[in-house]
C-alpha cells in the first residue's frame, strides 16, 4: 500500500508519509532543506544577518559618534591614528572614529543596495513580463531598448545620471536601479516566454480568463523563485555599484558615511594610513560576498541552475 516514509530526525514524524508532514508544517519545504545543507549558502546567510545587525544596531554598537571630529583623533602632524584601544579601527582624516563610521556606513550601503535592487527587480519584472506576455510590437520595442541599454557602459551611465540629478541617497539608489534592471528584464522575459507556451496558459486564454488574472494567478507564481534569487543576488552587485559611485564622488555625499566615500576621502593619506582603505574595503567585500553566496545557494537549492 502506501510506502512508509523514513522518520526525519527532529520531528515527531514517526512513520507518517513525508507529504503529510510537510502540509502539517512540521517539515520544511524541499528547497529550504537543500539550502540548509549548502555550507557556503548558510555562511552567506550568516554574513547577511551580521551586516543587517550592524546596520540596525549601529547606534548601540558604535563606540563613538561617527560625525564627531576628535581633536586628539589625529597625530601631532594631523595624520589619522592607527587602531588603538580608544579607536578600535583607527581614525579618519578628520579625526573621526573609523569603526563608528563603518557601522553607520553599513546603513547607507545596505539601504541603497536593497532599495536599488528592489527597484531594479520591479522594473525588470514589469518590462520582462509585458514583453514576454504581450509579444508583438511591444515585445520588439522593449527588447530593443534592453539591447541598447546593454551596450551602454553601466558605470558611465550611472556617472552621467548622477551628474544630472545631483546625487543624494535616494537618487543614487534610483540611478543604480536604472542601470541594473536590464539583465533582470532579460531573464524574466525568457522565463515568461517559456511559461506562456505551456498549455495551462493557453487553456486559461481559451476559457476567457482576463489578462490580469492570468498574469497574477498563473504566470507570476512561477516567477517567484527567480525573483527570490535576483532579489538577493542583485544586492551583491548594487552594493558594489554604490561603493564605486561613492568612490568616484558621485554617490552618497559626505558627511554621510559610506564605505566607498570613506575610501575616496582617504586617498591622499592612504599609503600612510592603509587601514582607511582596508577596513571599509573588507566591509564592502564581506557584504557583497555574503549576498553573493546566499543568492547563489538559493538559486542552487531552488533548482534554477543545473546541479554541480
Amino acid at each position: 500500500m502506501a510506502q512508509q516514509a523514513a522518520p526525519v530526525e527532529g520531528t515527531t514524524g514517526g512513520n507518517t508519509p513525508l507529504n503529510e508532514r510537510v502540509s502539517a508544517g512540521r517539515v520544511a519545504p524541499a528547497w529550504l532543506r537543500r539550502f540548509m545543507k549548502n555550507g557556503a549558502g548558510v555562511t552567506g546567510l550568516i554574513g547577511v544577518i551580521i551586516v543587517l545587525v550592524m546596520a540596525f544596531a549601529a547606534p548601540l554598537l558604535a563606540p563613538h559618534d561617527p560625525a564627531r571630529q576628535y581633536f586628539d583623533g589625529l597625530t601631532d602632524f594631523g595624520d589619522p591614528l592607527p587602531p588603538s584601544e580608544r579607536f578600535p579601527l583607527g581614525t579618519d582624516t578628520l579625526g573621526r572614529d573609523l569603526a563608528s563610521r563603518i557601522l553607520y556606513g553599513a546603513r547607507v550601503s545596505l539601504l541603497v543596495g536593497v532599495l536599488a535592487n528592489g527597484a531594479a527587480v520591479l522594473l525588470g519584472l514589469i518590462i520582462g513580463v509585458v514583453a514576454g506576455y504581450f509579444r508583438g510590437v511591444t515585445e520588439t520595442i522593449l527588447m530593443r531598448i534592453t539591447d541598447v541599454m546593454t551596450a551602454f557602459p553601466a558605470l558611465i551611465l550611472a556617472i552621467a545620471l548622477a551628474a544630472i540629478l545631483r546625487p543624494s541617497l535616494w537618487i543614487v539608489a534610483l540611478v543604480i536601479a536604472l542601470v541594473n534592471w536590464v539583465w533582470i528584464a532579460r531573464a524574466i522575459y525568457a522565463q515568461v516566454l517559456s511559461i506562456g507556451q505551456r498549455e495551462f496558459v493557453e487553456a486559461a486564454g481559451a476559457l476567457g480568463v482576463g489578462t490580469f488574472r492570468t498574469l497574477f494567478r498563473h504566470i507570476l507564481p512561477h516567477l517567484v523563485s527567480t525573483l527570490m534569487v535576483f532579489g538577493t543576488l542583485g544586492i551583491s552587485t548594487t552594493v558594489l555599484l554604490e561603493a564605486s559611485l561613492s568612490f568616484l564622488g558621485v554617490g552618497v555625499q559626505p558627511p554621510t558615511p559610506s564605505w566607498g566615500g570613506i575610501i575616496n576621502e582617504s586617498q591622499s593619506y592612504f599609503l600612510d594610513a592603509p587601514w582607511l582603505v582596508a577596513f571599509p574595503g573588507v566591509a564592502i567585500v564581506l557584504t557583497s560576498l555574503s549576498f553573493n553566496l546566499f543568492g547563489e545557494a538559493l538559486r542552487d537549492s531552488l533548482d534554477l541552475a543545473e546541479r554541480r
Partner: protein
Amino acid sequence: MIAYLSQRVLQAAGVLLGVSIITFLLAFLLPADPARMIAGRSATVATVESIREQLGLNRPLPQQYVTYLGNLLKGDFGRSYAQKADVTRIIRSRLAPTLQLALVGILFELLIGLPMGMIAAIKRGTWVDQGVMAFAFVGVSAPQFVVGLLLIYFFAYLIPIFPLGGYGTARHIVLPAIAVGLAGGGWYARVTRSAMIDVLRQGYVRTARAKGVFPSKVVFKHVLKNAVLPVVALVGLDIGVFMGGIVIVESVFGWPGIGQMIWQAIQLVDIPVIMGGVLVTALFVVLGNLLADLVYPALDPRIRYS
C-alpha cells in the same frame, strides 16, 4: 550564415543609433552651459552668446542631433569644447592605453581563471575545489578600487616591485591589469569548472578514469575545446566592457584611458567628447558581442544558426 551576419550588423547599427540618441539627450541634460564654460569666467554675455551661436547650441535639439549624425557619417566627431582639439584625435590618443589595459586584463582573467577552474573541476569536491571557489567568489565580490589600492599598497609601496601608477613601461600595466582581471578571473574560474565537470562526466572519460588511465591527450583536447566555449563568449563580452567601463581602475592608477576621458568630459560638460567616447565604447561592446557570436559556431559545429 551571410543572412544571419547581415541581420546582426543591422541590429548592431540600430543599437548604436539608440545609444547615440540616449547619450545626446543625457549630454544636454547635464546641468552646465558649455558655451559659458568655454567662454570662461570673465566673459561678457555677448561673448557667451556668440560662442553659443558658433557651436550651434541655440538651435532646436533634434536639429543639432541630425547635424551631429551627418558629421558622424563623414567621420567627423566634432571638436572638443574643453580642449582645442578634434575629438577624433583625443579618442585616438586614448585608444592605445585602453586597448592595452583591456587586452592584458583579459589575459590575466584567463591566466587566473582557466587553470583555477580546471583544477577545481578535476579535484571536484575536495578542499582544493572549495578553496578555489572561495577565491573566485571573493574575486567577484571585491570592488576594483579596493583591489587596486591594496595592490598598490603591497606591491608598489611596501615591497616596491611595481610603480605607483601611471603609464609607460610594461611594469606599469601589471597592477592595473590584475585589478581589472581579478573579478573576471573569478567568474571564468566558475564557468570553466562547470563546463569541465560536464565534459568530465561523459561516459568515455569516466571509463578511462575508472580503468585508472588518465584520459588520453586526444580526449583532453576535446575536454578543453568544450570547456573553452562559454569562456569565449565571455571574452567577447569582456572586450566590450573593458573598452569603456574601467573608469575606476583608470582613476586609481592614473591610467590615461577612454573611461577617464569620458569621466572628465562629463564633469566639464564637454559634449562632443562625451558623445564620441560613449559611441566608441558602445561600438566595442557591440563588436565584442558579434565576435563572440561568430566564434561560437566555429568552435562547436553543433551550433548553427538558421
